């Protein structure tokens, strides 16, 4: 076992219904793709271990339902997320237009401490299809305008960029999860053995 502390990252995937969220997750976790379309109702949870800079990181991926009527699973669902992945379908321009409102929805619900620097990643999915309708340039421009959100073009079907995209997601989330020494005031346990103690009878310089 590694001596480094374990990390678990909560990753939320959002985007319109049918853009390929569940497929991307399945490709990443199970290396499988299915053409059958089954709508996610409510939520799915998957976990996967990845290695980032020698650290073992467990990604806890929360896949949501995109349908209108299930749009809000509520604050609780978004609470304490480490990263948010926004997905659109490059062949469906309306799914690209929705990104803005998905991002807003997330920021409102999750209300992260530092919304400007919260790690998002945008995935333009289904690049294997011919009938592309949103250009890479257009997507990139939008991402740049939002504090330079990383952008990947993916295909869950042909496993294009999926691994890379999720690696980036893990890395960025981890970077945000800085080991801030917030809790320094936590008093450490001090141990002294009897001999030291005898030598140092009057010392108030105990190592606290």
């Amino acid at each position, binding site marked *: 076992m590694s001596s480094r502390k374990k990390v678990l990252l909560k990753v939320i995937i959002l985007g319109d219904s049918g853009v390929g969220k569940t497929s991307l997750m*399945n490709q990443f976790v*199970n290396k499988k793709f299915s053409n059958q379309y089954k709508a996610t109702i409510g939520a799915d949870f998957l976990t996967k271990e990845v290695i980032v800079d020698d650290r073992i990181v467990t990604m*806890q991926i929360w896949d949501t339902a995109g349908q209108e009527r299930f749009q809000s699973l509520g604050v609780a669902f978004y609470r304490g997320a480490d990263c948010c992945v926004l997905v659109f379908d490059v062949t469906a321009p309306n799914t690209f237009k929705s990104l803005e409102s998905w991002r807003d929805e997330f920021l409102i619900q999750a209300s992260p401490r530092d919304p400007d620097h919260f790690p998002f990643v945008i995935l333009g999915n289904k690049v294997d299809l011919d009938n592309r309708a949103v250009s890479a340039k257009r997507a990139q421009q939008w991402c740049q305008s939002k504090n330079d959100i990383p952008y990947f073009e993916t295909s869950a079907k042909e496993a294009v960029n999926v691994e890379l995209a999720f690696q980036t997601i893990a890395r960025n989330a981890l970077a945000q999860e800085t080991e801030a020494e917030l809790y320094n005031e*936590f008093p450490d346990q001090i141990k002294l053995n009897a001999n030291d103690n005898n030598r140092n009878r009057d010392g108030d310089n105990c190592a*606290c």
Partner: protein
Amino acid sequence: MASTSKDNMQNICSHDNPEKDLEPGASHDSILNPTDSFEEFATEMNSSLEGRATDVTKKSSTISEIQSEIGECSKALKETKSSENLLNKDEAISSSVSNSNLQEQNGDDTESELDDYLKSPELVNKEKHVFILSSAGKPIYTRYGNEDKLAGLCGVIQALVSVVEEQNRDILRSIITKDCKAVFLVKGPLILVGMSKSNESETQLVLQLTYAFNQIVSVLTLTQLNRIFEQRRNYDLRRLLSGAERLIDNLLIFMEKDPAFLLGAVRCLPLPEKVRENITSAIISTCHKIRDLVFAILIAGNQLITLVRMKKYTLHPSDIHLLFNLVRSSESFKTAESWTPICLPKFDATGFLHGHVSYISEDCQACLLLLTVQRDAFYPLSQAKHTIADKLRRSYCLTAINDALNRNKDLTTTNPLKHIGIPEIRHFMYKCKSTAQLFTSDPISLDRLQDYRQRHKEGGDVVKKKVEKLSDMDYVRNYREFCSKIHCARSPAKLIFRSNSEDTILAWITNGFELYVTFDPLMEKDLAIRAVDRLLRWIKNEEKRIFIMNAPTF
């Protein structure tokens, strides 16, 4: 199967009448808080969604009270209290999703991945599971298996809890199936879940979860726990708790077999009255000038030997249980004097006491805890400890403690059933309510405890096979149902008598005590009651040995 009678007992036994004479073990002064743990947890169960968020933060700090009383308010210990409501109602949004939508209807692959692990030998067929997660759904602790691999399950649990909370404005308390109970407890920023296939009641399970929560608080303080999640809701609490998982593991094992938890009482090491007096006065004479000392506690083998306290302050049994657990779980205390911060949640959840913890000597496995509000009192306390140890040795108290610990055959308390001389009695357990102390006929000895723990490390599995010779633990398991009937909030029973071909069990609660007795099978009721009367007289006779009957202060 159980016949209960509320009026039967009054005329049978005089001990029920508090004016006549005090029930065995009762005294006017108590070192322990006689709070009934069941009442407390009934309150827990009845708490409302709105009430819940506040009651973790409203308690005032006993530690700062003591500090201001002794006139030195150390800045270091002052902790700001959080006022933020953890469940911010304004944020809650309503939605039309119904519970059934949480079912995973998509991706057979995704389902099977989680299911596979849930069916692995590490997890399957366990009698009880306990999971602790943050309110963001991040895993913090699991009794069995690897919490990382249970992240998916934690997501599901969080979703269940929050859907009921946000959409129905209600609290999810339990899910009961034919052979399994799942209870849910949301405490501050944490969600605790217990799933049990045993005969424990919901209340008993909630009690165990509350203990697990208090164990975490004991390591971090409630103030710090709340603050961490106010600042970072995504915090992975395992970072701060690394090392404390062991404490929670041990606590859960401990609770499965020690009736002290079931009854909210503390077990005392039986000692001759004079010996206990000598020990207490050795502590008082050594420590009375150390003015920041709040408690001096001597324990051995999960039993209390004595507790000397600062005037006005008493300890809750559950805080003592956490101290027992800490000492039992920390091998390092055996090799060195330790100076460690300890938060006692019932005493003051907002701050740390500082504890000098050490075993009295190499040849006596009694552990002395000196708890103070001073963070730099190691040396004076270390000196006090050595003085106390010398005094105890010179007055042969260490020998007496060892005799009791080794269950010397010459002591009447070592094998009480033999001395009572009622062959039909197989086992009994008695709690004196006013002093929150407990005595059983077959105290769990340390080595057997070790065996049990080893068995549980490997197993903890549901066992179907019948055991031939019952141990204390097994009797206690049998008492659980009786205990919950007696403490049932809606229609509490005062006396339960159940006789069948396996055994006869009598459970009886009065204003002063609780008593559980196991007899031979098919015992007649009036015979049993006469036996109980004799038993109570024996306990009364021995009370000065088996209970601490005074409440000494520095």
